[in-house]
Structure formats: C-alpha cells, structure tokens
C-alpha cells in the first residue's frame, strides 16, 4: 500500500499535467517527463492488436519540446479550449517506480461551437522519482477509445 503523501503527490502530478495542457503554459508541460521518457498517443485498436503506430510518438523530453514548439509556431489550427478530466488514478505498484493507470476525457470547445468530447481513454503510465526528487512520467501511453478522431488532435492529450 502506498502512503497517503505519495498518493497525493501523484494526484497533484496529474492535476499539474491537466492544468499545463488546459491552461498553460504549454512550454512547462514537458518538464513533467523524464529526459528519456516515452510518450505515445495511440488508438485503442492498435494497442489491442499489438500494432506500434501512434499518432503522437515522442521518444524523449526533447521530442516533447519539439512538439510543443510546432504547436506554438508552425501548425495552423482554429483556436480552441480543452479541458481534462483524469479519474480512477490507480498506482498498481508502490515504491519509487509506479505503474499507474487512469481514465481520462478531454472536452474540446471550438469558437462559437458547443462543447464536445475530443478524446476519451486511459493512461498507462510509469511514474518515477526523478533525480531532483520530483515525480515524473518515464512513460505515458495515452490509449484512446475514441478511435475515430473528430478532425484534429492539436494539443497533447
């Protein structure tokens, strides 16, 4: 059984994750990952079939930063608001290296449109205590059930 403090530290990690994506600054979001982290956004059908193709694949914190910079400077997209709900945050194993699963939904609001569900699915994460003492994601697999994507996923999920 993990201790209460660790559980709350974990809850806060996910809260920070959500806030940085929904309210920014997006530039700070990669700092929640370890330097050599793996970040995947993968459709559930691929995940279940053992197919490797992900729609986002970042194999280092640097690649996360490149993705963020592209969102900021090169990708053309309509303005939108996003809002995360991350629930059932469940550490499978105690200790410094934790397998954590959680469910998520991201609601998208395009200008002058009604809110809609952009993506729904689960996180399959590996959370570690980094050298500086902070909890960080060493792996984050975003497995989305909403296989048919409503147009575009611009921001990370």
């Amino acid at each position, binding site marked *: 059984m993990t201790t209460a403090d660790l559980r709350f530290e974990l809850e806060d990690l996910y809260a920070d994750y959500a806030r940085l994506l929904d309210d920014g600054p997006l530039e700070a979001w990669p700092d929640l990952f370890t330097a050599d982290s793996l970040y995947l956004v993968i459709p559930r*059908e*691929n995940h279940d079939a053992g197919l490797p193709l992900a*729609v986002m694949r*970042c194999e*280092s914190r640097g690649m996360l*930063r490149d993705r963020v910079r592209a969102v900021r400077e*090169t990708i053309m997209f*309509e303005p939108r608001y996003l809002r995360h709900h991350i629930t059932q945050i469940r550490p499978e194993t105690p200790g410094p290296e934790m397998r954590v699963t959680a469910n998520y939904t991201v609601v998208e609001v395009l200008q002058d449109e009604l809110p809609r569900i952009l993506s729904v699915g689960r996180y399959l994460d590996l959370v570690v205590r980094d050298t500086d003492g902070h909890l960080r994601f060493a792996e984050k697999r975003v497995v989305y059930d909403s296989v048919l994507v409503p147009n575009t996923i611009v921001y990370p999920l």
Partner: protein
Amino acid sequence: MAEPLVWPDGGITEVPYRLYTDPEVFEREMERIFCGRSWAYVGLEAEIPGPGDYLVTRIGNRSVVITRDQDGTVRGFLNRCAHRGVKLCRERRGNCRMFVCPYHHWSYDARGRLKGVPFIKGVKQQGGMPEDFRREDHDLPELAVATRGGVIFASFAADMPSLECYLGETNTAYFDRVFDGRELQVLGYARQRIPGNWKLMFENIKDPYHASLLHVFLVTFGLFRADQRSQVRMDPSGAHALLISQRGAQQASEHTRDIANLREDFVLEDPRLLDPVKEFDDDATVVMQTVWPNLIVQQQSNTLALRQIQPCDPGAFELHWTFFGYADDDAAMTARRLRQANLMSAAGLVSADDSEVIKLAQDGIEQGGAGKGIMLMGGRGTDDEPHMVTEVALRAFYRHYREVMEL
C-alpha cells in the same frame, strides 16, 4: 435537381460551391463515382492473409465485406442481408467460413451467395418458404476485385477494365514503386472524421501550391519547398495524379519570404524526428499519388501510408489511414517510419494543417449565397507540369469529375 446546376463560364478553372453542400449532388456522387465504374481501394492482402479472413470497409456510403475464400481468392460483397436489409458483419475484422445474419441467421458464402435459410422448409410441416422461393435469387451484390502488389481494389461494376489500364502507365509505374511485390507489414491505423466535403481532401493532396505555404513545418525543415525539383503528373483521364518532389535543405530563399511565419531558427531538440534515409531508386523524397475515387498513396520520406476516403455527407468525410512498411524492414527502419509518422494523420505536425484548413474551407463555403472557387495557378491547362506552382491536377480532376457526373 431542384434547380439544375449551371457550371460557371470558367469551366474547370472554376468550381461552384454548391458541389460541396448539395445533398443531391452528393447522392449522385455516391452512385456514379464511388459505386459506379471505378476501382475503389478497400484494403491490403496482408490484412486478410488466410482463408476466411475478412474485413469490413466502406465504398462511398455502402458497407462492404472483403474476404479471402477457401481457395485463397479475394472476394467482396455488399454488407446488407437480402432478407430485411440488416448490416451483416459488425466486426471490423474477423475470420469465418459463412457470414451469418444476426436477425434470422440467413448465411452467405465468401461471394455473398445465399447458402442457408433456417426453417426454409418449415417446422413440423408448418411454415417455411413458398415452393417457388429460390435461394439463388437472393445472393448479395458481389464486387469485382482486383489486387496489385498486395493492395486490394473493388468495384460495383462487373465489367471494369484492368487496374493497370485504369491507372494508366505512369500511375501504375509509381504505384509499383511502393508496392513492388515485397511483403507488406501493417504498422497501424489512424482514423479521422473531417468536417468538410470529400473533394476538399483530393483538392488538398493534388495541390502542391499550398504545401510550400501552409505547411510551415515542412518548409522550415526543407522537406517541401516551392523551389524544389518536382513534377505533377496525371493519367490521361485526369482522374489520378502524382506529386513528385525532392527534398531540399533547411535554408531561406527568395521563395520562402512569402511564408509569413517561417521559422528559420527552429532547430529540433531531438533530430531523430526527421532522419530520412533513401530507400527508393529514384531521387524523389515525396510521392503523393491520388487514385480515383477514394485513395491516397503517400511516400513522405520513410513514412508509407494509404489514406482511404469514406464520405459521410456533403459536409463531412472519414479519412482512414493505414501505415505500413515492408516485412523485411530492420528495427531501425521501423522505428524511423514510426517516428516520422508524427508528421501525419490525426495529430500530424504537417497533416494537422490540412484537416484544419479543410474545415475552414467548408465553413467558408457553407456561408451560402452563390460562390465558386478558382483554380488558375499554372494556367488553364491539364497537362503534366515539371514544377509545383500549379493547380493543374485539380483542373484535371474536375475535368474527369464533370464527365462522370455529367455536370
């Protein structure tokens, strides 16, 4: 149609916006283009390797089953029970000998031929089908099927020309460039529902003009530039097209100044995102092939993908991506393909621009009032051109479109 559609004077250089919004035009497109005399992409042989393997996909607005029969031949039929119209197959993929409708268990073979009707003779001498009921009168519409290099095409028309003469010489050659007989390996799928008319997707891919302006990421990293060596080539009918270009370097030029927000100082923190290696015999680094009526074959550096267009209604279509490599790829090449896939599909650093701009186009077009788009870049012709400052492939597309639609 309500009021007959009058094509603007500009001919194929002008496209009336009604083509993107009118339900009757859409119905006509489904009948004549998708379910008419065309070879529609439906999948890969690698997806149904064994006897009884099947997949379900869509041609236009019709659901179809593609399956490999017990002799290993690929077959296809309309996914609609002859009894009362139920969509037979519910799974995206599977394996079975007979296709059994859930409602009354009528069963069909791999060619959609009705083989079983429960209680056809009744029960205890009661009920059952009338004397004159003949099962063979109730087979499902079978599809013509053609395969090449592991790619499967199907048609509702029985008397189609061969795939080769359908594609034409050049397009066949470039098709073979990627599908060269090596065994294909599916790396995975991505699916989008894009809120725009399906033709906007073809316009987008057939239009090299936009690539050097809209796609700042491509230009920034020299993956695609107005001043690159490149060519646009069509088949004689104009239905299909090829955009072929050769990667340049990351540097500014007189031709990049037009790009408002070019990022010359953008250096990747992790360059593995872009580490293409040459894998084909020619100099082309990007070949985008559009195959009428529903396929895009993409070779962008080392990303290989098929995009299948499934129209939903005048204002929306689904885009189904199949990423693949070759069975003999080494781990490094597979890793490379998977990393470069970051540029494409639902969250693509490049293709996001396209799905977003297609929505903006549909939004703009649907504002009502008469209106038309113009395609004059590169003149008014429809012949091959050795550069990318042209909308020639769009003009060729609409030349063919008007013939098929008789508009």
